[in-house]
């Protein structure tokens, strides 16, 4: 126990976060005072009925519509069992194919994932007409948060979010799962500043040799060059690239590579920064399905701090991290572990990510 405490304090210390906010003492206080003792709303008794169970539709109350996805509609709701706010994801059934495969993958993967930085699936409700997933309710997402705070986030917040994002990624990668659809809309932010990965509809667990994935994954802006070039044997590097794009976007307040129309424009944007790859810098690039060198303007690699001005105002380590995350050519010789270091402070070793500390942060000012 003592070791764990020390490890936690050290980890946070290395993070550069104030002990006052995040020391283990405070964490345990927070945990003690969390949900069970939380005073229930004064109107709660009006909702409560006896004999309510998990898994039934009557146990939840729809409040308002939050959004619409490709295969589901999300509502804000409240649980009549314990009064918690929940997000209800109502899956649309398709008559031609039954339960959408995205829903099946999301539920079966999330069932095996329990982590502070992964959205929690509370319950699944089956009714005759519909299927509803009950998630924990998280107030906002990174896209909204960035719209509310235009012009780039405070570097401390970037650090906090980035740490949590990489920790979440490290956790799912260790569980053989690729997220495959990282974008700010899929990163939920609670009012405590916790970041949670959500929307595992496109995620899948890695499996065997020779198995190819479809290359139509990941919103174009957050797609790594090898996938844009038509590679289908992608790996954890796919999510790492997405994390890199989000990192730059948080700092700059604008997407790192905002392509507009198609794959080629997207590649052009990326290579304007990284330089057009050649056989020397990326062995095998000329055999990629979409690689047509004559289509691209010749570009030299740029310094990141010249492209993204905000990097110039921060320590070199920040640029280092960006460079680690955004690599043009896939690694061949040394495989890389999901870098779990923090942008503007000393990198903390991967081990600190494994210790069971909940990264609860104080309220994040813009």
């Amino acid at each position, binding site marked *: 126990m003592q070791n764990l405490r020390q490890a936690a304090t050290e980890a946070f210390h290395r993070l550069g976060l104030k002990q006052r906010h995040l020391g283990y003492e405070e964490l345990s206080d927070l945990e003690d005072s969390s949900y069970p003792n939380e005073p229930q709303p004064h109107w709660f008794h009006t909702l409560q009925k006896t004999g309510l169970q998990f898994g039934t539709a009557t146990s939840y109350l729809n409040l308002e519509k939050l959004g619409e996805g490709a295969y589901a509609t999300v509502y804000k709701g409240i649980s009549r069992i314990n009064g918690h706010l929940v997000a209800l994801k109502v899956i649309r059934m398709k008559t031609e194919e039954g339960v959408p495969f995205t829903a099946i993958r999301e539920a*079966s993967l999330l069932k095996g994932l329990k982590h502070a930085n992964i959205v929690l699936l509370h319950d699944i409700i089956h009714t005759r007409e519909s299927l509803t997933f009950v998630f924990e309710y998280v107030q906002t997402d990174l896209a909204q948060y960035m719209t509310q705070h235009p012009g780039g986030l405070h570097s401390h917040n970037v650090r906090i979010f980035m740490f949590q994002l990489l920790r979440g990624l490290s956790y799912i990668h260790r569980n053989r799962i690729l997220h495959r659809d990282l974008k700010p809309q899929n990163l939920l932010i609670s009012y405590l500043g916790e970041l949670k990965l959500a929307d595992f509809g496109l995620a899948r667990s890695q499996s065997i040799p020779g198995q190819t994935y479809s290359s139509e994954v990941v919103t174009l802006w957050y797609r790594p060059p090898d996938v844009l070039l038509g590679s289908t044997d992608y790996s*954890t590097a796919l999510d790492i690239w997405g994390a890199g794009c989000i990192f730059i976007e948080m700092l700059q307040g604008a997407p790192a590579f905002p392509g507009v129309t198609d794959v080629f424009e997207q590649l052009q944007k990326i290579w304007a920064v990284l330089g057009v790859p050649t056989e020397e810098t990326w062995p095998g690039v000329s055999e990629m399905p979409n690689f047509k060198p004559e289509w691209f303007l010749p570009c030299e690699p740029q310094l990141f701090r010249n492209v993204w001005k905000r990097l110039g105002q921060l320590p070199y380590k920040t640029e280092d991290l960006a460079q680690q995350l955004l690599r043009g050519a896939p690694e061949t010789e040394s495989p890389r572990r999901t870098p779990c270091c923090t942008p503007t402070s000393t990198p903390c070793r991967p081990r600190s990510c494994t210790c069971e500390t909940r990264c609860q942060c104080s309220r994040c000012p813009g």
Partner: protein
Amino acid sequence: MTQTGFCDSRPLLDLHKKAEERRAPLRTWANTRGPKERRSLAESEEPRGPHCKTTPECRWARRMPVSAEDGIVMGYAEQNGSTDGREEEVLLQCLHGLPGLRVLVPGLLRREMELTMETLGLVHDRTYAWDIFSDMMRSQLHYTFPCMELPRPFTDAARAIVVDWLIQVHEMFNFSEETLYLTVHLLNRAMRQIKVSISNLQLLGMVCLFLAGKKEECLLPEISELCFLMDNSYSKRQLLRMERRVLCELDFELSHCPPLHFLLLTASIAHCSDKVVWMARYLLELSLLENQCVVFQPVQLASAALCLARLVLQEAHSPESETAWCIATSLHICSEPMLQRIMHILAVTASGAQERETRATFVKFSTAKTLQVSGHPGLQSAPYLLGPGGAPVRPQVREGPLKGMRAGETGHYMRTHT
């Protein structure tokens, strides 16, 4: 022969490892499994420790049960009764207190494992390989069933027919092999949890295949195609209703750890020839048809299939391949009688595969692509290669342990039935 090979390679382990790796805490099965397995683990790990100079012969025979001289294996099983087990437990406890705990970390195995997982494409990051492998070993325990009895309307024969048909449909769709293993696993669970009439068993099987496909595959067949394959005896609506029902009853838990992964891992660490691997894959797929195999862990099935494949093919082994095999067999976490029992089941199944009604697997593995393993003449006499159950090859050696094993076997059998 083999022990020298392995012992020679032992010092290499730590020398070429980085200081950081050496300090890594012990993360072996010993930490993750119950006391019973822990003991068998202690046996297999000991030769690497400093205390193992005493009885290397027996221990090595233990580690490579099949390829060793029969007499040693059986003799060892006899000598080492309960006393040895207790001794080892004590020894293990002592070792836990030692500072040099890392000596016990199967360093070579770990390195081999990481490399292999990467080359097989099971992981994309070698740095995660060990974590993922430990997780596989832990999670595979959940994919066995406590008893092999099927609920009332179903029989083993009915199940075998459905599985055989699913194997054909699966082959037609060109699905990956994981999908097949997942399908049969889902079917096993669904048959135990969902009450359906025997006339709907085919529908249930198809739904399991459909769900497994949705989980694993990129391209899915149309529902009408599925109905057509079932001779239109069920409507689309029935199929969709059944899908919802299965998902609901299985509570969306569709994860699985196919024995095939363990097989490929072990085979690749052991540098087995293509023929052995195909033979083992054939035997492993045959195990899907056998309802009595559901009580075994995936890793046990994989080990047994590989051991039997080596036994049947009787290839000549170089010292290097023997060494590799020794390293690989430390993955086998099942006891000797258990291994023999599974191998016996597989051998009997394989010897009768050609005459059976359910011969989709036999046909599938008789093509040139699969090196025609299913037609190998050695399979006919496979049960005789093994001691218990079949005709004993060397009765004078096997007499003692055989009796004990039989008793243990029936005892276990009884337990699983009650």
